[in-house]
């Protein structure tokens, strides 16, 4: 049995009359990638937003390393070691790629209420930022303004910033979307290498990548869990086949 890092119990989110996420219970463990897939509007991003504290759940509980974190603020959750990336790129466009990662890494100082020493002279912060940039394949773009990066590179930077905060648990919302084939393949390798030391929830539409990486899959439709299990179980599930019929082909994954 692997160590459970995070559990959700009957987690739900309503937006007015819309049940975006309904009674989702799942478990994330160190050393294995848990993929959440489903059609557009299934509630995948909303689920991540609740785990990261960007949204507070309407009902249900979130337990992280044995303690309840339901409704905690996003910054507190981040400091507990839960890092996330955004589906819609959410970076500091006016800063260089390096400065984006440096700022992310600086958040791991015990406090940034430091007023006199230059921010750029903290070596631990610098090392973490450089490492994250290299991991995401951006080491040659460190000095480039984020706004001048290509769309794919901005997606890489989005991941690099998440990594720069040294999270124990990664919540990745479509990390491969918008990346070219080469970067995508590289990112898959990176995620694979990260799996050993981290717990990871991966939302992704690229089924090849999902079936390469994930040890556990949860399929969501209309906010509900349709099926959960190993890749083989998901592939064989008639319900999943039906939900995906005509839209995407799971069989060759």
């Amino acid at each position, binding site marked *: 049995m692997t160590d459970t890092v995070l559990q959700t119990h009957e987690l739900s989110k309503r937006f007015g009359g819309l049940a975006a996420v309904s009674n989702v219970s799942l478990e994330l463990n160190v050393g294995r990638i848990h993929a959440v897939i489903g059609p557009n509007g299934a509630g995948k991003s909303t689920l991540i937003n609740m785990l990261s504290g960007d949204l507070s759940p309407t009902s249900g509980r979130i337990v992280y390393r044995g303690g309840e974190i339901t409704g905690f603020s996003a910054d507190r959750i981040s400091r507990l070691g839960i890092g996330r990336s955004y589906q819609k790129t959410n970076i500091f466009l006016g800063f260089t790629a390096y400065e984006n990662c440096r700022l992310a890494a600086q958040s791991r100082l015990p406090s940034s209420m430091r007023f006199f020493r230059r921010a*750029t002279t903290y070596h631990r912060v610098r090392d973490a930022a450089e490492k994250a940039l290299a991991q995401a394949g951006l080491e040659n773009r460190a000095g480039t303004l984020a706004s001048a990066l290509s769309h794919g590179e901005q997606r890489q930077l989005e991941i690099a910033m998440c990594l720069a905060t040294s999270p124990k648990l990664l919540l990745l919302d479509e990390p491969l979307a918008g990346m070219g084939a080469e970067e995508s393949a590289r990112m898959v390798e990176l995620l694979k290498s990260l799996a050993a030391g981290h717990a990871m929830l991966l939302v992704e539409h690229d089924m090849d990548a999902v079936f390469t990486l994930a040890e556990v899959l949860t399929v969501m439709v209309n906010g509900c869990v349709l099926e959960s299990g190993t890749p083989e179980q998901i592939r064989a599930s008639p319900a999943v086949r039906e939900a995906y019929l005509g839209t995407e082909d799971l069989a060759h994954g």
Partner: protein
Amino acid sequence: MPASRALTIALFVGLVALALFPLFGDKYYIQLLTKIMIMAIFAMSLDLLVGYTGLVSLGHAAFFGLAGYVLAMMAPQDAAASLWITLPAALGGAALAALIIGFLVLRTSGIYFIMVTLAFAQMLFFFIHDSKYFGGSDGAYVYFRPTAALTGVQLFDLENFNHFYYVVLALMAGVYVLLQVILRSPFGAVIVGIRTNEHRMRSLGYPTFRYKLVCFVIGGTVAGLAGYFNAAQFGFVNPELLSWHQSGIALMMVLLGGMGTLFGPVLGAFAMILLEQLFQGLTEHWLLVMGGFIIAVVLFLPHGLYGLAAQLGRKREAEND
């Protein structure tokens, strides 16, 4: 020549010129420059909020005025108050007010933030305006300038307009350097990140409210420093010092000079007060001319006078190549 070096040279030349000015200038202009430099400190403190943290405050004069009132209330009628007691008290008062007001207003953002900062400043304005203790709408006097004497030794004499000038010049330079250092620190990186994308700062783990509050307190305290010396210079405080009009003047200096540059607000303070003098001498409709000038700068120079200077610098550099 890189832009940062050009700026360093410009700063140095400006500082030397200001330092030498009292050797040639007459009393009227020395006192005018003193007033400008006090306003420059005030404008820099607002730029920290508006230009760097993205907090557009229309109530910043509350801290400027409050510190002046602390001095006026503490100063005896028949002797000079001690600088070493009244200045810390004024700064402490401004800081405390900024802490309390900031705690309440920083829960809002955007247009609501502008409105509540304005509302709080107006509340303070009317509180002082309507209370006998503070002298009501007539204000209050500071009969003697604070004395810097400490155990018999007096480093400088604020009653001497030359000394006053140099003290304010040193403070302006000191505030510039202090804010520059703070902006390069981890704290500075956080507040600039908040201006750019507060949501992402939170998801990176920064409790942004706390940082904004500390920034608001720093800005309020520095505004208090300016307000204290303003009251000391003119020997008089009135509720107008806390009014939204006063906040608006500082905001215009920031916009005129170029926000988010620190040097810009200093330029803005000089430009605004000197032009005011100029237009005042030319026409009785000088307020209209002044207004037109500011509109023109904001429309055609989005980065203010500082942006214009930087642009000209780059052009010359290109021609020299």
